């Protein structure tokens, strides 16, 4: 097998740019991350395994990854609807709504956390109406979900929006003239076009949620075994000068995130490779 690394191109600089890419990537990403592993390796396997499988840690993984995934999926649905409305309809205030979508990007996460907490607390604007229904949001895992959904929204909207914009309206019309009803047109024509972008958006929202700290700690209540996220657990360990313990949990998060990102990439490649190899 012959591996072609370089194809003739009108623009020179393949060696230079690849070299720079590797150097920069090492400096910014690889070296700090490998520090994590080096620090962790100062422990024995038993110690490592004890920390990793500690029930409190396991509960925190479940909450972190579970709420992140749920939040990303919720964003997948509602973010797509928002993107659809923004692209397909012209209404007064559209550009305002369009700008508001970016707010979770720009807002300091602590501010978002405090705001969400005050709204969803039992005496807050929304919380007071949910309280009689028996739904408690603030200081419960549900609060974590709300916070993680909030911060992930722009990722889905902003990845789906350009694809929707480029979507050829004639393709939908073609489906309609062939007798497809609205649902069939949506499912058979629009969803396959959106799917790769939607997956990217969900993956990014998920990745962002897994790493989120600032907004969650205010609304979560941080009760061990119940509403404590892994990043907070890491923070707690750091405050107790348990660096090895903190990095151990860091390694768990890193590996899990990497595996999930890889899986999403494979899924994307698989759904994209079936067509559009233009």
């Amino acid at each position, binding site marked *: 097998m012959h591996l072609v690394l370089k194809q003739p191109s009108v623009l020179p600089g393949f060696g230079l740019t690849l070299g720079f890419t590797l150097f920069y990537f090492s400096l910014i990403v690889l070296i700090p991350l490998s520090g994590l592993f080096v620090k962790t390796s100062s422990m024995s396997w038993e110690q490592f395994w004890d920390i990793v499988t500690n029930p409190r840690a396991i509960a925190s993984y479940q909450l972190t990854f579970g709420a992140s995934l749920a939040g990303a999926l919720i964003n997948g649905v509602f973010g797509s609807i928002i993107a659809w409305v923004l692209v397909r309809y012209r209404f007064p205030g559209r550009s305002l709504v369009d700008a508001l979508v970016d707010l979770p990007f720009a807002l300091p996460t602590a501010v978002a956390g405090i705001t969400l907490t005050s709204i969803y607390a039992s005496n807050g604007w929304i919380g007071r109406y949910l309280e009689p229904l028996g739904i408690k949001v603030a200081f419960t895992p549900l609060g974590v979900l709300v916070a993680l959904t909030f911060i992930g929204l722009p990722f889905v909207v902003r990845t789906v929006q350009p694809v929707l914009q480029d979507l050829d309206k004639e393709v939908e019309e*073609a489906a309609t003239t062939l007798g497809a009803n609205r649902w*069939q047109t949506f499912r*058979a024509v629009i969803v396959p076009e959106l799917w790769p972008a939607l997956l990217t958006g969900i993956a990014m929202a998920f990745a962002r949620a897994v790493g989120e700290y600032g907004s969650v700690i205010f609304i979560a209540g941080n009760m061990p075994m119940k509403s404590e996220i892994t990043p907070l657990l890491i923070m707690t360990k750091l405050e107790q000068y348990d660096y090895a313990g903190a990095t151990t949990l860091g390694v768990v998060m890193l590996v899990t995130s990497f595996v999930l990102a890889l899986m999403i990439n494979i899924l994307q490649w698989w759904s994209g490779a*079936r067509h559009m190899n233009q």
Partner: protein
Amino acid sequence: MSIQVDHVTKRFGAFTVLNDVNLHVREGELVALLGPSGCGKTTLLRILAGLERPDQGRIFLQGKEVTDQRISERRVGFVFQHYALFRHMTVADNVAFGLNVLPRAQRPSSARIQEKVHDLLGLVHLQAMADRYPSQLSGGQRQRVALARALAVEPKLLLLDEPFGALDAKVRKELRRWLRRLHDDLHITSILVTHDQEEALEAAHRVVVMHQGNIEQVGTPDEVYEHPATPFVYQFLGDVNVFHGRMSQDRFLDKEAGEPVYSNADPFDHREVTFVRPHDLELSTTRTIPTQLEATVQFVNAAGARVHLELESNESPGLIAVELTKERYRELKIQQGDVVFVHPKQLHVFKMPSPGL
């Protein structure tokens, strides 16, 4: 199925796209809607398909009013200029789409669908491409897939919106002939929208010439070409020389005035314009009739079956285009810079309702 367009008007904002249009298409006919871009031809086609709603007027298919009927109930096949294929589906899946979305009770068995797709791909000569994706096909092949896809639902009416507009000249020509043959086999009432007069004249049984939301003329290709009803039709179908003023074969040039004749006798004081096709102009190297126009040859293009000349005359503004047969060109032995005398074999005089054209 026969089509009746009854006083249809369509506006986009303040712009009137279709202005009180009436049209009748007989069952089994292949009709071309011909006109420049923005003349409303595509809008009319989309209204027939149900993709647009007319602001006023009614549409009848097979004598039944369908103005408010849903697209899917009209049994209309639509072919788009840019194919509008489903790019995530194979060619076979594209063609099968219309059958797969049928309600379960009407849907044929999957074996029957497969068989039908195979037959349709045979019809458009693309059996070998069944498992390819649209991106792996050429433009002409994609449009044939789009046509097979439209035919799969057995439409009673086939609407083609500039189907060959995005293809190169050679492929267009092939597909145009192929479409005509296909129509002769299938006899589906078809409407072809095009801005290419050659395409319309060659493919269609009847041509509907449209201009600024109005139908200018309806007729067989021969009728509209030989007997254009309006100056627009004359100009739009083929090349034309325009002379301002009334002329006739024996009075092409007013000797005294030294310029093309204006008729002042018209009681309504309409300006008049004379149209002469380039191939209806006769040249000679010496003056044989006193009213001939004297001109100098500016440009000669002898490539192709006919020779194209451009003449300049002091007696008429603008260049005059002349088309000669090869034989006549050799006989005359004309070269660039020669002085020739021009005389029309046939001409058309139109009254212009407003000045200028």
